[in-house]
């Protein structure tokens, strides 16, 4: 019996298991949320948010954002053609505001700041 418990103890301290866990974490952090900006005609711009985790309801997020930022926007599902997933597209430059929203713990999604990448100028 005692031998069996020792083996179990050994297993729990298996260094490779920990390594696997670590690699899993790193792959998670690799999946960034990309916030991009695009120029339209004149001084108008579009903000696109790509890669919001699927556990969130994109529709509801959009509804809140539209109200908060006072802008219009849509969800573009691009899954079949390029594999981008659902992209939230907003009218105007809301990059910093949307980052605050994604990071905010009380009124936002309380995501990790390190997973968010802001592109553009």
């Amino acid at each position, binding site marked *: 019996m005692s031998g069996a418990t020792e083996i179990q103890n050994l297993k729990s301290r298996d260094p490779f298991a920990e390594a696997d866990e670590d690699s899993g974490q790193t792959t998670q*952090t690799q999946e960034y949320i990309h916030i991009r900006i*695009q*120029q339209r005609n004149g001084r108008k711009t*579009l903000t696109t948010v*790509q890669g919001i985790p699927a556990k969130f309801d994109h529709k509801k997020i959009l509804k809140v954002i539209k109200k908060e930022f006072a802008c219009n926007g849509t969800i573009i599902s691009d899954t079949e053609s*390029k594999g981008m997933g659902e992209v939230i597209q907003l009218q105007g430059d809301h990059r910093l505001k949307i980052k605050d929203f994604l990071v905010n713990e009380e009124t936002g999604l309380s995501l990790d*700041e390190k997973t968010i990448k802001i592109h*553009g*100028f």
Partner: protein
Amino acid sequence: MSTEEPTIQRRASRKSVAFTEEKLVVDADGSVTMIATPNDDTKDTAMSHTPRTPPLSAALGAFTDASQAPADGADGAAPAADSNPDGLDLSLLKKKKKKVKKEDGEGAEGAAAAGGDEAIDLSMKKKKKKKVPKEEDEFAKKLEALNLEGAEGAEAPADEGVQEGDMDKGTGIWAHDESRTINYDPLLSRFFALLAQKNPDHASTGTRSYKIPPPQCLREGNKKTIFANLPEICKRMKRADEHVTAYLFAELGTSGSVDGSRRLVIKGRFQQKQIENVLRTYIIEYVTCKTCRSPNTELSKGENRLYFITCNSCGSRRSVQAIKTGFSAQVGKRRKMKV
């Protein structure tokens, strides 16, 4: 639009742009928290041991941590550097030390004064006291010894406060016939001071900021921007034009072309500052070495289609992400897009 034009012209007269993301760290430290900041840095390295190649955002986080260091460095300075004797930490310390050295002119004395990682006001007081009897060194020593005896009668930790002296002149604890044991921190600071003294070229490489010529932006018509000196900048960064171009287009979310005289024509209106920001992120991501922050690196396509950055000054090699365009919304008329 009329308000934008004069600003662009004013900017064009600037000669060079300093990309000083490493200098920022030093500026943020100031000379006050010389000991405290390396401590914080060691903590960062200890954390980043598990992921071998940290993502860019993590690295950026480390940058910000370093700039935040003075804030928590004031109270978190308790454990001295001797708790981390491995090579990486030392190198970090060295860099910090050297930069500090350059900042304050009287290098040795400043380092010696900040040696004990007590509160800052203590060392300041000691310095002032020492200034007065500088002429009669022996007398000062005796006086200090007397002071020490008196202090030891009162309280024990006064011993650390007396670790003072000018190491160049050989006074105080640095005197030749001094028999007291010298604390670790003054010894360490003396080591780095001597190192910087004997190898001045070491120090110069640490603080030099990386400069590239500022991007020249012209407007072609109403909707296009010409980026005139792209080949020059690419040459300075030792990167292929195509790579930089692809990154610019991906980040700006546009497209463009190269005209006859190798200038880049970008669709959309962009100001010099905006292009500059993108170039800055490019340099952070694809040019500077993450280990030693040197811009002297090479980008090469390694095996299995991954790009690798090899540093020429420290020899480190890391993989970088390929440039991804990501999602780009449809802009303009639908009719145009279909054709």
